[in-house]
């Protein structure tokens, strides 16, 4: 699935939830201290503080009036460049590229869709959104394509560890840990086959990241034990989330994505 197509889907998903968008207008209050006071449409150039002009800084942003009062050149540093409001994070592992049936999206596709849809809602509400580790905090109508592009091609940017984080992924690693400021959320996305283990008969299981294959002559025999293990894993994710003050959410790729989006919104609102 190309980035552009996902983007269109995400927009459609977001715009298909007008109530949610209206409610998202009020997402303003979830901001971290010091990041508020911005009004919609004014953004991008609000003054944050002066600092000394350094070689390589844009000369246009020197405050000449202030500089004329002394010997120093005062450089206008802008507030939004330094602070991110909400960081969205995709926990990208090879295992995400899996769907048990052609009619289902891969976990990765669903995660990106939900991520972008949430980003679209937040952007419309005037929030600043960053893709953790890939983009700085962005806002405005051009932000969403930039986020999508960063998801597709990757990117590198410093992310403020103070901003709240919403993590998307399958979190199948043993002993999951979520290091983020409290108030964020963790959305675990799993394929129905990973939850239900519907296999039977003689099957060779192959991992997606170079694990040695496992063969069973009768997959039904493993079902009960697997169910216990996957539930334990889900429980571990919930425990780890709560430990760091995150809201734990769960989504199956055969469920409607709008439901997950509503849950995300509610989780953000609760925080």
């Amino acid at each position, binding site marked *: 699935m190309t980035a552009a197509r996902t983007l269109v889907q995400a927009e459609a998903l977001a715009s298909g939830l007008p109530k949610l968008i209206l409610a998202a207008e009020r997402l303003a209050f979830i901001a971290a201290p010091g990041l508020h006071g911005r009004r919609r449409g004014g953004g991008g150039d609000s003054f944050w503080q002066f600092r000394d002009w350094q070689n390589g800084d844009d000369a246009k942003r020197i405050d000449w009036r202030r500089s004329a009062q002394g010997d120093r050149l005062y450089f206008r540093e802008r507030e939004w460049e330094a602070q991110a409001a909400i960081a969205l994070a995709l926990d990208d592992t090879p295992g995400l590229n*899996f769907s048990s049936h052609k009619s289902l999206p891969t976990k990765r596709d669903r995660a990106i869709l939900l991520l972008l849809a949430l980003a679209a809602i937040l952007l419309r509400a005037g929030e600043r959104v960053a893709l953790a580790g890939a983009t700085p905090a962005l806002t405005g109508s051009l932000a969403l394509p930039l986020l999508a592009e960063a998801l597709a091609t990757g990117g590198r940017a410093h992310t403020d560890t103070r901003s709240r984080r919403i993590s998307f992924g399958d979190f199948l690693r043993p002993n999951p840990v979520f290091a983020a400021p409290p108030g964020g959320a963790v959305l675990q996305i799993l*394929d129905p086959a990973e939850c239900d283990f519907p296999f039977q008969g003689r099957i*060779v299981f*192959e*991992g997606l990241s170079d*694990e040695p294959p496992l063969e069973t002559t009768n997959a039904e025999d493993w079902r009960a034990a697997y169910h216990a293990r996957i539930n334990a894993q889900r429980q571990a994710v919930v425990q780890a989330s709560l430990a760091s003050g995150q809201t734990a959410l769960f989504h199956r790729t055969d469920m409607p994505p709008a439901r997950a989006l509503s849950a995300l919104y509610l989780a953000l609102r609760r925080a």
Partner: protein
Amino acid sequence: MIFAAPLALLALALLPMLYFILRLTPPEPQRQRFPPIALLQDLPETQHPPRHIPPWLLLLRLGALACLILGLAAPTLRPPPALPGTGPVLLVLDNGWASAAAWPQMLQTAKNILTAARTQNRAIAILTTAIPAAGDVPELQGPFDAATALQILSAIQPEPWPADRKAAAAALRGADETTRLYISDGTGGGPAFQTFLTALHLTSAFKPATLPPLLAPPALNASGNLTLHAISNPLNAALLGESAGGDIITRMAFDPSGNATLDLPLPIANKIAKFVLDGPPTAGGTVIVDSSTRASLAALDSGSANADSPFLGTLYFLRRALPQTTKIITGSFEQILAGKPATIFLADSPLSPAQQALAKNFIAGGGILVRFAGPLTSETPDAFSADTLLSGERHLGGALSWTTPEQLAPFPATSPFAGLAADPKVIISQQILADPTTLDPATIWATLHDGTPLILGKPMGHGYLVNILTSANADWSNLPLSGLYPAILARLSSLGQGSPVNPNLALPLQSELDAYGTLSPPGVTASLTPARRGSAAISPTLPPGLYGNGPGFIALNLGFHVQPPVPANLPNATPLGAPAPPRNLGPLLVALSLALLLLDLAFSLASRRVLRLRRLGLVTALALPFTAHAQSAALQTELGYIVTNNPATDQISADGLGYLSANVSAHSSIQLGAPVALNPGKDDLSFYPLIYWPLLPSAPVPSPAACDALNTYMKYGGLLVIDMPGSDPGAAGSGAGFAPGASAAFTRATACLNLPPLEAISPDNVLARSFYIIPDYSGRFTGAPVLIATPPALDADGVTPIIVSQNDWAGAWARDASGEPEQTPLPGAEDQRVVADRFGINLVIYALTGSYKSSPNAAPALLDKLGQ
């Protein structure tokens, strides 16, 4: 059913082995990608017995292999013919001369019938229509059981004489079988055949595809060449000339009138013993050549210098009295011997001893040497003569003689001239004499009234030495002036060819011609006189063949002595062909085996999730109905035109739309392929943005399927352009009168279409604006109203589904291969064509883009609304 390669069946023994191998081989495990594989580590493994191949898959594979082995064994199936009716069967079989050509097929058909009768357990009676032997009549044989009938059938042979339908009809009177099958030789006609058919009460009949061949007896034409005529030669076979030994000497084709002329050097031509038609040997296609039709070579020599002087020369009369067909050579004695003549006439020519030795050899080899007397040889006759001759000549009725010139006495019965009437007007006035003391009476062939020998003949070896004791010209007698002279010379020529010389002598049958044209020793005694040959009819009492004894013989051929073949009036007869071809089941079984193996492959792949069966079926179902046409149309935009019953109109449509497509491609970003001829109802119309329908006054009513297709096409966004090459007399436009009946044709052809209400197009319609701005809608004609759907009937894009015109647009667009216009626009010529070409581009743009160009039309109103 039989197996052509039964050894392959041995491989069936492999099947049980395969069964065990397949049972022992477990199916391949399914492979499954699974991200949380780490969670599966160290789960307890329970042991299960190996899974067996499912029984249905085992059966499928065994069945595929069994089909393959059976198919490789090449089983063939002969469909048994079914006999009509019930009860005993009467089989009537023609076996006259005419059946020989198709005899194998006839016999095979008869055998098939007998085989079918055996399976149905029915008795068989057999009647053959030819008389088996002289004095016999055709008789019904049987009924027998099929096995006996088969033995009787295999003994039946075609006879060389005609089938006797009249006698066969008589034989049929007593038959009580109800199922009557007739295997005809294909000839019939005449009242006898009608009587026969009436008596037959036919159930079903079989007859050969062609008539039997029949050659007329050979004849000599005026130039002495042999000509042959084919009375019947259905396969147009060539003519082969065969020697007595069976070597093919020549091969000739018949001219359209069925004649062929032999043009070979005489010695070679005379080696030909019979002519046969190429193809299956038959008596009808064979003619035996006898000496009567063999051109002869006579050599003339004379001792006198002026031998050819008119009326005086020694050879003058001789040359003219010889039979017309005789070829004549002259020269010295040695020269003419080298020419290998049949007869040599020496007129008053002395022979040296060396020449006499040569002459003796010539006669011993079968030649005839005829010596006329004359002044040069009378004084010192040489010893080479039939009898000893006296020197000096005898004068009769001269001034110094008391006797009167003598007449001829009747010819002796032993003479070759027996039967010729002695002409009383013939008077011999001078001759030489044979020595009466040594005269052998057997050598006397003709005498005068007083008993004086006139012609002496003596057999030497195979030939004869003949002395005619008077001159060859009219000096010594008036014999050369009489009609007897040519007759005598003809008899002597016949003697040279070995022909029987007496036409009234009955000649016994020497060898008989069978139905296949082979000469064999006679089975019956029959005789024929040469005089009766012309009117002889072939029958068991007078079979075809060679008649004669000793060296002289005549041939009796079928041509002219049997009825020429006339097609039998059997309208429902089954043609005799090759026997029904056996059906080979091998390829079918191999194909079935491959299909089963493919099915097995599909199941195997499906069980490993490589292939999704449901999707495969869907793809196949989708792919099948699409034709190559549709594929090309789907890949490239093409215009379509509806083919008419008129090739010229279709050509104009193709050329016109072809030029239009090229023009549109050149002037816009649209790239059009070549136009496609369409048959509504057969071809899928949905790929074509525009379909041009040239409607001729002679257009038939479209089929219901075509109407449905066109209605669907118009309903779902197609643009159908109905164009007529002119209009009725008196109608509007310059095309009036070019297509009388156009309006009626339009009403008739569109009666089944769901046409929207139509109105005349306005000059500022989008069609006049969509690419070029054009003043009118001219084609080859101009001024006729162009009709489009009224605004409520336009589709969602504001495009009319139909345009009706009588301006013949394609006629204006059409260019030939060199780019020259094919038709002249009326009345405006090239200016009008420019408008027509531009309209064509507008039309295509309109069909492809709809009415978005109509906004400029609405611009004034929009500006008004905006208050500017």
